[in-house]
């Protein structure tokens, strides 16, 4: 982390804090970096997701839909996609909240609600995928 300040002698920060580069929140560039990591993983997973949904486009029967979603390859791709996407959207929405909501209390509530929403979506999807997949053996 480059130190671009004109005169570092006036800094209140300890040398250790500057070397660690984790900033005031103690997380450094973690938010930014995981947003990028999940952006990269989203690309192949979203392409696979679109193909899976396209295979469901012709209004399948219940049995057909179960057969597609419970296939191990489909289920594994969907689980990976849900993990990647829910993390990416949680980080992205937090940036939007921090950009536009300036009231301190409202911001805390919104960021917290954002975390809850992302976890609820993630758990609901993962539970449903696992429930229809587990126990199915391809014979």
């Amino acid at each position, binding site marked *: 982390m480059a130190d671009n300040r004109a005169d570092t002698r006036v800094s*209140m920060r300890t040398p250790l804090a500057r070397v660690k580069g984790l900033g005031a929140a103690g997380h450094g560039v973690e938010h930014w970096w995981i947003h*990028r990591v999940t*952006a*990269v993983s*989203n*690309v192949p997973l*979203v392409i696979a997701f*679109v193909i899976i*949904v*396209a*295979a*469901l*486009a*012709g*209004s*399948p029967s*219940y049995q057909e*839909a*179960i057969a597609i*979603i419970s296939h191990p390859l489909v289920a594994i791709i969907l689980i990976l996609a849900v993990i990647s*996407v*829910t993390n990416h*959207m949680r980080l*992205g*929405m937090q940036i*939007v909240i921090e950009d536009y909501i300036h009231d301190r209390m409202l911001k805390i509530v919104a960021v917290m609600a954002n975390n809850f929403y992302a976890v609820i*979506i993630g758990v*609901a*999807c993962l*539970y*449903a*995928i696992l*429930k*229809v997949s587990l126990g199915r053996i391809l014979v």
Partner: protein
Amino acid sequence: MAEAKVAPRPLSPHLQVYKWSWTMAMSVVHRLTGIALYGGIALFAIWLVALASGPSAFDTVQWFFGSPLGYLILFVYTWILMHHMLGGVRHLVWDFGYGMEADQRIAMARFTLIGSVALTLAIWVVALIAF
């Protein structure tokens, strides 16, 4: 320590003072599509939970997605997803330090819109013919 500032801080001008450009429009659309996908994923969660709940819940949800409104939502959702994906790839290219020149920026912004529309149409043609 910084002294307490009494002078009024400069305010950043609002969006409407700028002449719209391709890069500005696609930047705004990227954020809007991200917000839309954030809400839209709930539809996928509802569909999956209905599938896990059993045939009667599934048939209700499937009836909705099979209705004209359902198809419209899925079609628009496809475009939103493709636009956000191409916009994201554009941002990754910038993160590596490429595509910063004016003509490159504008070309990439145009490609985001044209590419997302083309991909959406291609996906729906393939989905309706092949499956």
